């Protein structure tokens, strides 16, 4: 019943909010309608009637500007929009949880993820404290696995990730081989250290400039969150944005405007890390359903 799902959804949101409030994070609201998102090769914003203004695809630009202003721990639960994304795990309009911390790197975020998922499971599923996806039970209190992207491709796919990237097979292997393999774990899994071309806003590893300090959280094979140590070099950031626009242009996509005020203040951003978590998917895992339609009040098709 959808009515039960809506109660569960409200409980998950409340548990998430309590988790961050209890840990001294400032809950913020930033504008949803903005003149520029961070340009990404494969993310298309929804434009409005205001010339070039668009709905946010993520609150990251504004939240990082707050880090530049000196805020240290921030979180936000907000609506995001991405054009033409609709599937069993995607809605064009969806709810994102993002949190940012200064003076730390992506390792701290991984610890946050463990605490958050354990808190949500304990509050929202007090009987068994488990998540369920495709009938598999996932225990956030069991020890979490951390696997590098390179290792995952070699181990589960017997292929080299760089080779897959060159041949344009990365997404196919990831969704057809790696994600199903991650579904076999009874605990959440962290896939980490992505090839730098797959991390437009992440800092590279000090030990290997080909890898970025980015990770993705998987629960039962479902991709739940994407976090990284933030890049705070404005020149490198501009270069990557322009590269994304070049790829878009080559693929026949629109060129996107750059978020200039963000680029201007980026040099002031302390060492930081930030993460985006699909809240609808967290509700799916808590409810044990496999289709996003079941945990929202209305799908676009019902409107």
């Amino acid at each position, binding site marked *: 019943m959808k009515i039960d799902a809506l109660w569960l959804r409200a409980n998950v949101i409340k548990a998430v909010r309590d988790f961050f409030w209890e840990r001294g994070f400032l809950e913020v609201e930033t504008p949803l309608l903005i003149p520029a998102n961070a340009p*990404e*090769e*494969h*993310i298309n914003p929804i434009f409005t009637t205001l010339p070039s203004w668009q709905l946010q695809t993520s609150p990251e630009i504004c939240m990082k500007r707050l880090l530049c202003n000196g805020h240290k721990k921030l979180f936000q639960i907000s609506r995001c929009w991405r054009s*033409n*994304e*609709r*599937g*069993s*795990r*995607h809605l064009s309009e969806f709810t994102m949880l993002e949190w940012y911390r200064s003076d730390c790197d992506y390792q701290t975020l991984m610890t946050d993820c463990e605490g958050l998922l354990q808190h949500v499971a304990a509050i929202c599923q007090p009987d068994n404290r488990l998540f369920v996806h495709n009938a598999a039970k996932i225990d956030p209190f069991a020890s979490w696995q951390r696997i590098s992207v390179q290792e995952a491709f070699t181990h589960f796919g017997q292929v080299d990730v760089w080779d897959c990237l060159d041949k344009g097979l*990365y*997404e*196919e292997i*990831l*969704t057809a081989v790696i*994600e199903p393999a991650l579904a076999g774990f009874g605990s959440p899994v962290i896939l980490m250290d992505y090839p730098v071309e*797959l*991390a*437009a806003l992440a800092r590279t590893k000090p030990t290997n400039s080909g890898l970025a300090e980015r990770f*993705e959280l998987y629960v039962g094979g479902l*991709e739940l969150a*994407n976090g990284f140590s933030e890049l705070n070099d404005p020149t490198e950031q501009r270069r990557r944005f322009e590269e994304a626009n070049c790829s878009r242009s080559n*693929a*026949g996509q629109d060129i996107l405007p750059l978020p200039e005020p963000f680029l201007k203040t980026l040099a002031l951003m302390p060492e930081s890390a930030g993460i985006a978590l699909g809240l609808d998917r967290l509700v799916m895992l808590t409810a044990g359903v496999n289709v996003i339609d079941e945990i929202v009040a209305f799908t676009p098709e019902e409107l």
Partner: protein
Amino acid sequence: MYTVADLKKGLKIILDGDPYLVVAFDFVKPGKGQALYRTKMRNMINGSLLDRTYRSGESFEPASLEERTMEFLYKEGEHYTFMDQQTYEQVVMEEETLGDAKNYLLENLKVEVMLFGEKAIGISLPNFVNLRVTETEQWAKGDTSGNDSKPATVETGYVLRVPPFIEEGELIVIDTRTGEYSTRVKG
């Protein structure tokens, strides 16, 4: 032309020259990666299933299928001939293509013929058809053997189970979706 954004259940497209019906569809997009469009399609001519994954930028030719009301004329061996009463155009279909539909084809029955270009690839029947029983055992009144049905052959040669009281020469209604007896027709 259709693009990947048009993909959805029920879409009909042409692939390698054959018409396909999209029977399952999902959009997948790994974190910040390229979108993939996963489909399962059924070949509308031979019924075989096919899994295909597409990416942004790919396009498809729509399968233009036309449904036309035609009358069944006659059967000759394995060949069944239908005619459009308006244009007098005739099409011939093999028994194999017709499948179970052949059990209900009586001369002059009106059916919807699905055309892919010039080729007839299937028919849809009315949900119920009336057919006369040509052969069945006589019902012994007072039979307490407990059999609540018996086999009967109808005029197309189709054999089905009917209630024991049905007699040869009677007209019965058959549900073409299940192939089962529905009711007896008076007269």
